[in-house]
């Protein structure tokens, strides 16, 4: 909670920076602020809920804190990664502010208690991202990305609102808990349009986590946006969206799961197939990662699907999003450095093993993690999903997941092969990576490995 305020405050400070001329200090301040936010966040973990006055609207329970922890940590790394990206742009301050505001939205999504906060959270997160996606003003691709994101996004929010309205109409409340209890009290006499409302909300959320068939925006936006913004989208935004999804459906609509589980199964299947198969065809790394993020979304949805009533899914998803976020941060960090010359295709990676062995190694780990090979964290993430799925009636989905992950290995390997094998035809000039960025990449890689070897560190934390 305090974390939320701190970050909003940082956003405002950032805006002042230009006026009071302390741009140079901004990054340190922001980093400090984030650390502080993290600290508060962590404290709340131990001494329960904070400011109770807003309880009806927003409350950081353990689950919320877990997710916001991940988000804040990711953001921390992201800022370090992005510092030179801010340098080269002359809207530094605005960028800072926008990213921080987006973070605020994300944090709200991890712990909303009310449809209002859900909706506002989504919008607060999205609107800055629309801008950021389009922030390369001269780059038509970037513009298009922002534009598409905006149109599709607000179209989806339209459906979200329609759903919320219908649910409100049926239950007479925006409060998650009240909706939940209302459902449990009169399951039988729910009007038909309530279900439609739920379905609409589901659809909107699927859009936000970019699950097929509502994924179309993702590849284009990911590709068009500046690399680091893409990184932000595929980590912070996704995590937040999932936190929201989880809370909304595991808490709010758990009572009517029989309505949405079926749909979810279909969505997952579609996402797995479409994402993996089209990813296999991509030559642009960012686009490929976009599709891969869709398939990962499908995996996380599977967890929700698997434990509608049990509570294992929480730590499973937390672990998954942690693994995925850190993997992607490392990956995008490297993509960002490799594609400085504007070439974002896989060829850009040729001979990276020679041009910068350390980065090549980190990228390898990241790719293996995304592909889910032991002893990376990605493996355990997948493992959790499989374990969750095996007991459910959705075994066919599991088999599909297995096959598609084999396909997945196919395109992750393409990068590795490019780095280690295609070293003849490329001119072997070294790739310089800033100290700070190297630190981030290496650090995330290490985390990926460590929680891959000792998943207990994380997995055991979220038994609630």
């Amino acid at each position, binding site marked *: 909670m305090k974390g939320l305020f701190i970050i909003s405050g940082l*956003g405002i400070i950032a805006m002042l920076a230009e006026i009071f001329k302390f741009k140079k200090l901004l990054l340190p301040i922001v980093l400090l602020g984030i650390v502080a936010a993290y600290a508060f966040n962590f404290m709340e973990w131990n001494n329960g809920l904070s400011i109770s006055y807003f309880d009806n*609207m927003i409350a950081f329970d353990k689950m919320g804190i877990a997710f916001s922890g991940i988000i804040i940590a990711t953001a921390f790394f992201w800022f370090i990664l992005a510092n030179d990206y801010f340098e080269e742009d002359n*809207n530094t301050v605005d960028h800072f*502010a*926008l990213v921080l505001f987006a973070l605020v939205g994300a944090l709200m999504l991890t712990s909303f208690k009310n449809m209002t*906060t859900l909706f506002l959270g989504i919008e607060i997160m999205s*609107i800055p991202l629309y801008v950021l996606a389009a922030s390369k003003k001269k780059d038509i691709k970037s513009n298009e990305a922002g534009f598409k994101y905006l149109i599709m996004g607000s179209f989806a929010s339209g459906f979200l609102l329609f759903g919320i309205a219908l649910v409100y109409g049926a239950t007479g409340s925006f409060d998650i808990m009240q909706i939940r209890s209302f459902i449990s009290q009169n399951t039988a006499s729910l*009007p*038909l349009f309530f279900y439609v409302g739920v379905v609409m909300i589901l659809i909107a959320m699927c859009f936000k986590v970019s699950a097929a068939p509502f994924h179309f925006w993702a590849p284009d936006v990911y590709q068009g946006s500046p690399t680091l913004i893409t990184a932000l989208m595929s980590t912070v935004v996704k995590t937040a969206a999932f936190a929201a999804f989880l809370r909304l459906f595991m808490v709010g609509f758990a009572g009517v799961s029989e309505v949405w589980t079926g749909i979810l199964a279909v969505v997952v299947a579609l996402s797995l197939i479409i994402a993996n198969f089209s990813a296999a065809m991509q030559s642009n790394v960012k686009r490929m990662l976009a599709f891969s993020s869709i398939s990962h979304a499908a995996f996380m949805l599977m967890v929700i699907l698997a434990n509608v009533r049990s509570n294992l899914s929480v730590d499973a998803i937390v672990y998954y999003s942690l693994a995925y976020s850190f993997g992607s941060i490392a990956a995008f960090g490297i993509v960002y450095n490799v594609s400085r010359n504007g070439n974002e295709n896989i060829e850009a990676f040729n001979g990276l093993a020679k041009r910068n062995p350390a980065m090549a190694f980190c990228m390898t780990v990241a790719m293996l993690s995304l592909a889910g090979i032991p002893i990376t964290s990605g493996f355990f993430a997948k493992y959790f999903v499989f374990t969750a799925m095996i007991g459910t009636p959705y075994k066919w989905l599991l088999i599909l997941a297995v096959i598609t992950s084999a396909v997945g290995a196919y395109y992750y390997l393409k990068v590795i092969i490019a780095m280690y094998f295609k070293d003849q035809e490329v001119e072997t000039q070294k790739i310089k990576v800033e100290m700070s960025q190297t630190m981030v990449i290496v650090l995330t890689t290490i985390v990926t490995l460590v929680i891959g070897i000792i998943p207990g560190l994380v997995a055991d934390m979220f038994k609630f």
Partner: protein
Amino acid sequence: MLGYTITQWLFGILSFLAIMFALMVVFSRNPVNSVLYLVMTFFCMAGHYLLLNAQFLAIVHIVVYAGAIMVLFLFVIMLMNLNQDTEPQRTWLTKIIAGVAGGLLLFVLVGSLKGTEQLQLQSYGASQIGLVKNLGKVLFKDFLFPFEIASILLLAALVGSIMIGKKDIK
């Protein structure tokens, strides 16, 4: 008259107009016209709000939409001086497909809205909920947090549009 109460007449007329204007928004070739039709639609909606005892909301609606947002639209359109002949048109095929899609959506939604018990919208002699006092209470008690946080939203929009809008000083 004709067995309908005055309100029912009003409702009917407003609804009809709203839908008419909405359709015009979609189908008129000239963007400027669409804007104006949209404004008309909003007025009809304001009417509905009044019917529903949401007086304050009706005012705000007019002010915000008709007064601010639509003007903004108009402004931009003027800026780009878009008009009938610059207006790009979709192929009929896509239009039809779009129509079909919309029709289907309508079908399923309406289908799903059927069968709800006939809840009559009762009117209390003095239904206060729509009034400023009442709304203010709710807004600043229960919805304080969203209200506060909405400022962040607006701030973000502000910063964002400025950043996008302003020329880069090289």
